[in-house]
């Protein structure tokens, strides 16, 4: 069947079997391998993408459910060679070690600070509770999201001034 959706701002129309999982569609059909397969059982969050702006687990979505929707993957974060604030945060605060969870963590972090521009540490930890990192102990991931929130706040203040 044909499914038409937007991914990272570009419209795609693909032929898929209905049983295709979104994570497989993205990685195999579209060749975008930034979205990872970790547990494949809705637990780890490595496959996180944004669906109409909300983070969801793409291993637990069927491709036809994307019809008419907007998807953002980690490849869609940087625009015109400029890193998104969340990517800068992870870079500056060293919010990763092996990097496997990082695409999911960044997408969750980005959605979190868009919905709540000044999250507390508790709110950040709650927000990333569906994403597992087995390296960092989460400290620097929290700092990275705080860094991005602060950078966004500074930019907005500068815009007003």
């Amino acid at each position: 069947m044909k499914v038409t959706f937007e991914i990272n701002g570009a419209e795609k129309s693909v032929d898929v079997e209905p049983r295709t999982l979104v994570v497989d569609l993205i990685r195999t059909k579209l060749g975008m391998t930034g979205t990872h397969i970790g547990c494949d059982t809705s637990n780890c969050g490595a496959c996180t993408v944004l669906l109409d702006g909300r983070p969801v687990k793409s291993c637990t979505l069927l491709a036809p459910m994307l019809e008419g929707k907007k998807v953002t993957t980690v490849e869609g974060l940087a625009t015109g060679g400029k890193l998104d604030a969340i990517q800068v945060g992870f870079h500056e605060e060293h919010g990763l070690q092996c990097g496997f969870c990082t695409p999911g963590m960044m997408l969750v972090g980005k959605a979190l600070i868009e919905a709540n521009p000044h999250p507390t540490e508790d709110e950040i930890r709650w927000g990333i509770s569906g994403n597992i990192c087995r390296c960092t102990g989460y400290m620097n991931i929290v700092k990275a999201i705080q860094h991005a929130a602060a950078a966004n706040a500074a930019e907005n203040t500068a815009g007003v001034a």
Partner: protein
Amino acid sequence: MFPAAFDYIAPSALDEVLGLLNEHGDDAKVLAGGQSLIPLLKLRFAAPVVVIDIGGVDGLEGIRRENGHVRIGARTRHRDVESAVDLRGTLDVLLDAAPLISDPLIRNMGTVGGSICHADPAGDWGAVMLAVGAEFVVKSGSGERVLPAAGFFEGPFTTGLHANEVMTEIRIPVGAGRSGGTYLKLERKVGDFASVATAVHIVLGDDGRVATAGIGLCAVGAHSIKATAAEAALVGQEPTDAVIADAARLAGEAAEPKADIRGSAEYKRDVARVFVQRGLHTAVNRAQGAAA
């Protein structure tokens, strides 16, 4: 992992859904948020011939108050209950339960009606709906039925919903009187299914006595359990420590837990008792603090 092959249909109107259910019956599965169904498809515990995606059907989402009820569209996401803060003071137990369901990403997709119809014995909404005395509106080609939550859950993943029916709405009565409730959940880690969870919801009359009491137990039996003897022990009584302790004891006795990696049967039964006791104290405090 990926599912066995199926035909996928995404109707835009409820009538079309009902027609398809009539045609395919047990061969069809309704897909709402997919957070329970898709894992089952991937594990091939379920292999329907037809998957009917109701994601494009209008009128199945949202929370509104009408005619003494809070009405929740069956496809309303857990996340949207979590953020329905105006339910605080009326249906505390819903607001307390929603953020404890799985994790934030699952709550962004998973739906209230889907979870209820899936009827996992460890599903959170079942116990909550039993506690608040919800009714489920279900539709088929031959009309509409309104099923009380009490009696709806028949066994693991088994409900009173017929193969040609789809749930469209959850109705929760919110009458006069001061109400309070809460949901307490023991889980091994964030996002896990409950080891034990309990939902309580009480309404106090003008005389300070318990007018109605609802207690639902999660993950301590073959299905969500309504602790009716414990409820009856509260109604008409002043909610003293002794009355609450006695009701909690009866709730513990209503549990039918099985030992597994999450704990022994005795342990789970006692957690149910303790949680109902704590929950009732919270519920009473909230009700007493609430405006009439």
